[in-house]
């Protein structure tokens, strides 16, 4: 049992890895967590990303100890904590609603975990001041919670979560209540704070952009299972399956045909060799809008580019970028996105125009599963 984490745990120089194995939680017949295995490295920023109801919050709450799984193991370092009550797990936690204590001042909120650990008034005061300085709220200690703005509340919740030096920090969609500008600023700040604290951080969000911005690694979760766990670059550029490809970024999926030689084709164009090892019942090509470019004059495939021909349905200007929808046959439309700088200005395709669209072979993403409707 992991009850013996007394004052030694107040040393925040050490972050802890989290080992999760065969974690299962059922609600009725529905698996909220279906035998999840996940290794979270010491000190990393890992994001659990998934649609609502995917099990990401269930997983986070299981790590915090607020959701009791049916079976499985959760270890912090060498310590099995699956049976440890939340107050002995020593993890900092930030909730979506911040859950600040309205009957205490800012300083009272931040001092709460320290007082519970019997830390003397003087040290307590000093650490609260340090924590508030870290989140840039120096001097606001005596404010009441209702005198704070949304962003300030967010920072207090953060300070309270790390002031006692937990080696694991858990956050449940902490930025979703903020407006877009503030949210984007806080994303960067959180990332900087994480680097400063060096604490293992598990972050839950349904916002893929937020996940891509902040994470060392992303665990994409769906129907209680991990769909893919990897760095943002790999997740985006090499999605392992249709769910990840569809959930992250914009994409069109084109079904591929397979020949005996192990080559994959789309309408006569050879796309790629079948990835080794895997034997799926079909393959699809993932096309991202920003990977496509308009070719100046009609071209055919070469060893650098795959060419699609189609008719422009509509072109839309959106500020920093613009995009066109191009129908390559009756059922299939591709989206192509391009910059709107002065250079690009002349090049917008007019609707109704016949165009050739090129996809660099370096940008080819092939996933298992036939996405034919």
């Amino acid at each position, binding site marked *: 049992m992991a009850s013996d984490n007394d004052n030694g745990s107040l040393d925040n120089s050490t972050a802890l890895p989290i080992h999760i194995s065969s974690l299962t939680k059922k609600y009725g017949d529905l698996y909220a967590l279906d035998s999840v295995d996940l290794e979270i490295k010491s000190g990393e920023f890992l994001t659990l990303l998934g649609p609502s109801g995917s099990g990401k919050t269930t997983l986070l709450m299981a790590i915090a100890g607020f959701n009791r799984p049916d079976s499985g193991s959760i270890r912090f370092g060498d310590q099995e904590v699956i049976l440890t009550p939340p107050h002995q797990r020593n*993890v*900092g*936690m930030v909730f979506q609603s911040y859950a600040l204590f309205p009957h205490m001042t800012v300083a009272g909120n931040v001092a709460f*975990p320290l007082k*519970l650990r019997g830390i003397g008034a003087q040290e307590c005061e000093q650490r609260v001041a340090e924590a508030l300085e870290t989140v840039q709220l120096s001097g606001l200690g005596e404010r009441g919670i209702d005198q704070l703005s949304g962003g300030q509340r967010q920072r207090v919740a953060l300070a309270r979560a790390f002031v*006692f030096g937990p080696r694991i920090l858990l956050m449940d969609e902490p930025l979703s209540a903020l407006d877009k500008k503030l949210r984007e600023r806080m994303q960067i700040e959180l990332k900087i704070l994480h680097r400063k604290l060096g604490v293992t951080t598990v972050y839950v969000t349904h916002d893929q952009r937020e996940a891509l911005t902040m994470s060392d690694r992303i665990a994409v979760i769906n129907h209680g299972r991990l769909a893919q766990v990897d760095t943002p670059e790999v997740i985006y550029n090499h999605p392992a399956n249709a769910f990840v490809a569809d959930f992250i970024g914009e994409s069109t999926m084109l079904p591929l045909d397979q020949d005996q030689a192990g080559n994959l084709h789309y309408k006569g164009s050879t796309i790629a060799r079948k990835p080794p090892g895997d034997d799926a019942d079909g393959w699809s090509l993932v096309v991202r809008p920003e990977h496509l470019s308009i070719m100046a004059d009609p071209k055919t495939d070469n060893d650098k580019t795959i060419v699609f021909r189609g008719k422009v349905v509509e072109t839309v200007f959106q500020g920093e970028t613009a995009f066109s929808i191009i129908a390559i046959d009756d059922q299939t439309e591709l989206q192509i996105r391009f910059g709107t700088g002065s250079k690009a200005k002349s090049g917008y395709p007019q609707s109704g125009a016949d165009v050739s669209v090129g996809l660099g072979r370096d940008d080819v993403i092939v996933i298992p599963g036939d996405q034919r409707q």
Partner: protein
Amino acid sequence: MSWWTRPASDTQVTHGDRFWLYVVASVIMLLLVLPTFIVIPMSFSDSQYLEFPPSNWSTRWYEVYLGSTKWMRATATSVQVGIITMLVATPLGTMAAYALFVSGHRAAKALFMFLITPMIVPVILIAIGTFYAYGRMGLNNTITGLVLAHTAMAIPLVMIVITAALRSYDLNQERVARSLGATRLKAFFLITLPQIKFSVVTTALLSFLTSFDEVIIAIFVSGGVNATLTKHMFAALRDFIDPTIAAISTIMVLVSTILLLMTQFIGVKEK
């Protein structure tokens, strides 16, 4: 533009158009409040009969009340039972409401329904039932018996008020407190309780009033030296109209009004 012709709603009804409603509602509200306060001037009448307005003023009925051993003893019993009921029902109901609220168990709803049955079962039935059962248990005419029955009557009110309070409270606060190192018990006392304290005080006052004002059960199960104020009042009302009742009623109205204003005051302060 005067108030009369100003639009009272967004569908261009003016206050003038609605004036009839304001009049009707005011009359109804006066009818709701005034009859209760009529007892105050009556209680200061010098007359044996209930005339209004009293031709001569005096405090003789208060003197009768204060000088009567019967009324004094009954008052003492009522206050005692009320306070004990408050001290028992408030924690019991709060504990149960909290437990059922956080458990999320399938049976929680059924248990909640069971705990509010004292509000559903007609009081006359509870009165004769406890009278019969107490007869076997030797609890008739005892403080214990009264407190038990009144506690059962107060528990539903406590449950309802506390559950409503918990519903509007962010339970994540308790979770955060636990993640920060507080046991569940500590989290409840340090975080949850301070935030539902207004509701807890309200339920305490409600519990006291429930017991203090309760008539029917008291008629049956209280008696002798432990008869309540309400039992004696009811008997007096059925037999003849004794102006002493006006004096006692005035005191009871004052108690209720003060308690009600207290809850409103705390409520405003907490918000």
